[in-house]
């Protein structure tokens, strides 16, 4: 059962035995990024065409201007992605706006060679027309790779760190060490609980605290209070900050 659990994090084992998790991005968000890039390129062509008509055409004539424009478009079509992806941010403007970036499978930035390979192979992914091969390939590979990615050993991942909820809520509970030794997953769950609890309704909080009753050994609000105390203790075991003392009748959560 464990082997078949679906997840968006894809583990990759590096050569030195370290396992990293890649937040790979799928076809939907990548198609959005591609559309934005396409619009950016079309916009650039439009601007350059108009500029050429007024600045270059009178001097060089129609044929030479058209030739220069075709050359310019050729370089844009082939190297727009390469230059941006091999650059410092590892993302085209479209990918950046969707908060994506291209990465090597090892989690490092792509090299110029990888960027060239994955983008020149767009021709193959485009086949038979309109990226049909690329779309199908992305839908059916584990890390959402199109053929160019598979060959260049790259992935497109989310660039920004996972969202960290801002907790400005004051929690009136007394710090207390958990009554039993907790595993890392359980500690993480407790921390998640204390970070996200302010977003939930009171009933839901008590419901969740009731699930954790074997740990708190208390039902209802008292269980919730103990659970919050343990989570606070995990956040900061030493009493560095003075915790507001639990007031009788005062709400447990106060923004």
């Amino acid at each position, binding site marked *: 059962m464990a082997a078949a659990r679906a997840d968006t994090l894809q583990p990759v084992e590096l050569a030195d035995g370290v396992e990293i998790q890649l937040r790979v991005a799928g076809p*939907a968000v990548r198609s959005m990024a591609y559309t934005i890039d396409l619009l950016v390129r079309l916009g650039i062509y439009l601007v350059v065409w108009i500029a050429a008509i007024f600045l270059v055409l009178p001097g060089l004539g129609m044929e030479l201007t058209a030739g220069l424009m075709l050359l310019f478009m050729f370089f844009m079509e082939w190297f727009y992605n390469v230059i941006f992806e091999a650059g410092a941010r590892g993302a085209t403007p479209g990918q950046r706006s969707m908060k994506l970036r291209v990465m090597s499978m090892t989690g490092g930035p792509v090299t110029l060679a990888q960027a060239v390979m994955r983008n020149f192979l767009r021709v193959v992914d485009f086949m038979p027309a309109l990226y049909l091969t690329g779309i199908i390939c992305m*839908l059916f590979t584990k890390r959402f790779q199109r053929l160019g990615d598979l060959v260049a050993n790259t992935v497109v991942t989310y660039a920004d760190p996972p969202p960290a909820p801002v907790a400005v809520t004051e929690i009136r509970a007394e710090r207390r060490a958990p009554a039993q030794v907790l595993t890392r997953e*359980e500690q993480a769950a407790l921390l998640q609980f204390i970070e996200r609890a302010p977003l939930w309704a009171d009933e839901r909080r008590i419901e969740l605290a009731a699930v954790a009753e074997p740990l708190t050994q208390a039902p209802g609000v008292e269980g919730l209070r103990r659970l919050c105390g343990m989570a606070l203790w995990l956040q900061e075991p030493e009493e560095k900050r003075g915790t507001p003392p639990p007031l009788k009748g005062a709400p447990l959560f106060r923004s």
Partner: protein
Amino acid sequence: MRLEDMTVVLRPRQPWEAVDLGCAMVRRDFGRLLLLWASTVFPLWAAVCVLLRSAPEWIPLVVWWLKPLYGRVPLYFLSRAAFGVRPGFVETWKAWPRLWLSNFLPALLWRRFSFIRSFAMPAQMLEGLRGSAANRRVKTLAMDGGGSGSSLSYAFSKIELVAWLGLMWGTYELLPESAQPDWNGLYQAFDIENTIPDAFLWWGAACHMIVVSLVEPFYVGAGFALYLNCRTRIEGWDVELAFRRMATRLSGAAAVLIACFAFSGGQAIAQEAEGKDAAKVVKEVLKDPAFEVHKIKTKEWVPEFDAPDLPTVPKLDFLGVIGEVLFWLVIVGLVVWLVIYLVNNRQMFVTRGVSKAPVRAPKVIMGLNITRESLPDDIVAAARAAWAAGDFKEALSLLYRGSLSWLVTRRHVPISDSDTEEDCLVHVLKAGEKTEASYFKQLTGAWVQIAYAVLPVSDEEMKSLCDQWPFVEKGGEA
């Protein structure tokens, strides 16, 4: 619903990541989903095709319009598979009529144009709400994920459209000419009925169905995952799941402890079970991609030429023959040149100062220069003069050298430069004339006496040596 059995890793994700999760879920079960799809949707399409057989241009529109129905069976499967209970085919087929008939009209009429169709579908189908309650519920959920829901619809309709056009464009050239539209006529007269053949329309409809079958399950799965993500964020499903596991562990530990006290034989049974589990665990671990055995197969492409094509290519074998001949010519030339060079420069290999002597006579014996040039013309006179001057050693040296020189050059006595006086005498006695030999014997005695023993030689002896000097040109020899 048992959260513990979830086969999906839940955590609060960003909307697009949730969409990716949906894609991953669908990909995992795509085979089964496609089978369910084929068994439920294809009959409907067949019916549509039969009904619209005289107007195939309307088929894609109807197929598109009926889309809300298609996703219901896959959603039924996905929602159960996500919670660890994969429904069998029979079970799914039994649920099929109920799934399609519930919410039938709203879904196909006023909700058809909802931008959050796939996101709202789980709320409508799985939560069992009806009417205004369902609307409220969808609205509540959409507060958090509605924007992403419509982005999702946009992204997938774009993918679907692009894939459809791509498939038609990519296979256009494969169509028989009778099935290809007359584009010129279409542009000029805009006469759709006569310029676009029915075959083209049928084929376009078929392409549309193929693409919908491919993309729609992913769209439905993505909407479901977005819905899951929404509820995970709102209700903390991932936290609940972790808490449930913790509760099981904490209370389970206590239960085991009690069991150990209760049954004495419990331990053995537990161990046996553990052994079985270990084999299972090993199998599961080995399923991991990290243990996959990769093989690299290298295939070499050898271009094949057809035999009939070969005669057109001029025969170039003679070039090889010429090349070989040239090669050997160069080698022979090199060897000849080397020989000539060595012959011309052979003095490089010979010690300097040794001229082409007419005889191989040594020039130096026992450190004494015996070449004719180093000696005076009249050796006897020179010796007498040296003797008169009191230089006895020089006088005898002259005589001795002169005699050796004569013997070596004229008589060809085989004396080598390493021979001693004794050796020389032996050689001379063997090879030389009697008079010369006896004279040489006397001379050697005198020379050894003065040169090594440093004993005086009498004037008489010297006189007799000079008088008897035999090594002169005689008669015809002069």
